[in-house]
C-alpha cells in the first residue's frame, strides 16, 4: 500500500504528519517513508540514524562532440527547453534546462550529441528499526524535481517493494512535481488548516487529486486557529475528514527543535491512530 501525504501549499504540516505517522506505524509494521520534497527536504531533521547509505542518481544529458559537429545549429531549434545555445564555434548544453528527451541527440545529422549519464542528485537511505527512510536531494543548480522523484519511486519499487506501508511526503503545491509524486500511489491524504488560505489551497489540491482519479481524505492541522469554513466545505463536497490535530503552541515548539511529537502529545497520538486505522482498513 502506497500513500501520499500532500498539501496545496507548504507549511501546513505535511512533513510533521508524514514523519510522525511513519514512526508510529513502524512500531508495528514495516514502513517506508520517502521525502520527495526534493528542493527542500526536511524529513532528515527529524529522523536520524548512525549509518546512512547514499545512492547517486543520474540521468542522460547530451554531450557535445566538437570533432563530429558541423555547426548546422539545428539542435538549437529542436530543443523546446532552450537548453542548447551556440556560442561562436561552440555548442553548449545547459544541464539544468535539459529534459533528457533525446531529440537533439538522435536527430543530429552528425551524431555529435551522444547522451551520457550525469549526476542528478542523491537518495540517502537510513534504517531505524522497522522504518526505512529515504531522502532525495537535487544537485545544487538543478531545477527540475520530477525526474528525481520518478527515480526515487523506481528505487523504492526495487528495494522496498515488500514494505507493508509506504508513505510519501510529496512536494508542496499542485504543479508538475506534486503530480509526478502523487500519480503512482493508491491513496492520498491531504493536509490543510482551517483558514481561508488553507481552504483555498485545499480546494486546488482536491481538484488535482480528483483529476488524477485517486481516492483521498483530509486531515486538518491546527484545528481551532481559524473558522469553520473548511469543515463546511468538506461536508458539502462529501470528503472524509480523517482526523483533526489541535492547534497548540507546544507542538510548534517541539517541531522547531526537530522532536518527534506523538509520544509527547496524546491528541496527536489519537489523531495518528485514527489515520492508521483508516490506512489499515484500505489494504
Amino acid at each position, binding site marked *: 500500500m502506497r500513500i501520499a501525504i500532500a498539501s496545496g501549499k507548504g507549511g*501546513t504540516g505535511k512533513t510533521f504528519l508524514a514523519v510522525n505517522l511513519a514512526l508510529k506505524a513502524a512500531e508495528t509494521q514495516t514502513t517506508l517513508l520517502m521525502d520527495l520534497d526534493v*528542493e527542500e527536504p526536511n524529513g532528515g531533521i527529524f529522523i536520524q540514524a548512525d549509518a546512512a547509505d547514499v545512492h547517486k542518481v543520474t540521468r542522460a544529458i547530451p554531450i557535445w562532440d566538437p570533432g563530429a559537429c558541423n555547426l548546422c545549429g539545428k539542435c538549437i531549434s529542436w530543443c*523546446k527547453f532552450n537548453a542548447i545555445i551556440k556560442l561562436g564555434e561552440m555548442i553548449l548544453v545547459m544541464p539544468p534546462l535539459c529534459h533528457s528527451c533525446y531529440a537533439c541527440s538522435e536527430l543530429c545529422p552528425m551524431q555529435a550529441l551522444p547522451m551520457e549519464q550525469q549526476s542528478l542528485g542523491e537518495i540517502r537511505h537510513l534504517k531505524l528499526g522497522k522504518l526505512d527512510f529515504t531522502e532525495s536531494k537535487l544537485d545544487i543548480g538543478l531545477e527540475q524535481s520530477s525526474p528525481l522523484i520518478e527515480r526515487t519511486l523506481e528505487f523504492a519499487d526495487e528495494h522496498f517493494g515488500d514494505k507493508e506501508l509506504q508513505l510519501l511526503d510529496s512536494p508542496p503545491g*499542485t504543479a508538475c512535481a506534486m503530480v509526478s509524486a502523487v500519480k503512482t500511489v493508491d491513496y492520498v491524504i491531504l493536509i490543510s488548516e482551517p483558514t481561508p488560505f488553507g481552504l483555498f489551497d485545499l480546494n486546488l489540491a482536491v481538484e488535482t487529486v480528483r483529476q488524477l482519479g485517486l481516492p483521498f481524505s483530509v486531515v486538518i492541522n491546527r484545528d481551532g486557529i481559524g473558522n469553520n469554513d473548511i469543515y463546511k466545505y468538506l461536508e458539502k463536497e462529501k470528503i472524509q475528514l480523517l482526523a483533526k490535530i489541535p492547534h497548540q*503552541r507546544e507542538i510548534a515548539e517541539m517541531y522547531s527543535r526537530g522532536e518527534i511529537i506523538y509520544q509527547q502529545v496524546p491528541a496527536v497520538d489519537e489523531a495518528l491512530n485514527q489515520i492508521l486505522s483508516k490506512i489499515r482498513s484500505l489494504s
Partner: protein
Amino acid sequence: MKEIVIISGKGGTGKSSICAALAYVAKEELVVADCDVDAADLHLILNPKNSEVQDFYSGVLAEIDPDKCIACGLCQQICRFAAIEPHEKTYRVIDLECEGCGYCYYVCPQDAITLIDQNVGKFLISDTRYGCTLVHAHLGIGADNSGKLVAKVKSEAKTRAKTEQKAYILADGSPGIGCPVIASLAGADYVILVTESSKSGLSDLKRVQELVTKFQIPSACIVNKADINPGVTSDIHKYLAKNKIHHMGDIPYAEDFHKAIAMGRCLIEENETRWLPIFSEYWHDIKEKI
C-alpha cells in the same frame, strides 16, 4: 521605481501575512505583485475586484490527428516519457505524461502531430480594497510555474506603477530555489527574507540566501515566531550577521497571524495598536535602505 521582493524558501513562515501588512502600511505608494502563483494567497486578504483577465500560455503539448496517422508507431518508440499509447487503431498522446519536447513532431513521417500551445492559467490585474493595484495569476493544475509567468506578473506591475506614478513594487515571491524564484529575484532592488525559528526554517533560509548572493541583491531578514525556539533564533541571528544580511527584526509567535487570516484581514486590521507601529517601522527601514 524600486522593486522589493519578499521570499521565504519554505512555506508557512508567514510571508504572505507580512507582505499584506506592508502593503497596508504603504498602500498609497505601491503596486503589489503576487509572484507566488503556486499558492497565490494575497488575494484572500486584498479582495481584488474589477479584474482585467488574460489567458496565459506556456509550453506545448503534442496532439495526434487520427486521420493522418498511419500507425507506424515511430512516435511511441522515441518518446522517453511514455506519453504515447495505441488508441483505436492509431495512437494518442497522454496529456498528463507529455513533456512538450516536440520530438514526436519532428519524426512523424505523416505530419500527423501538432504542438498545441498550452493555456496554463490566468493572469489578472485588479483593484483591491486597500486602493492599490494587485497583479496576480492563477495556474492550472499540474502546470509548471515558469519564469515566464512570474516575469509577466512583474513587468505588468511595473507598467502599472509607472502609469499610476507609484514609487514601489512589492512582490510576494515564489517558493523554492528554481526558475520561478529566480524570475522573482531578477530585477529586484531589495530582498526581504522571511524565516521562522525552527531548524527547517534556518536550513531553508540558507538555501535561498545562496541564490540571493548569486544575484548580488542586498537583503534583509525578518524572523517570525522568534520565541518558539530561542536557540535556533540566536543561530539565525549569527547567520545574518556573518552574511551581512540586515536584520529587520523578530516577531514573536502570535495568534494574530491566524486570527487575521481567518477573518480575511491583515495583521494591522486585526490589532492596530500592536502591529501598526511595527510595520510602519519596517516600511520606514526598507525605504531608508533602498
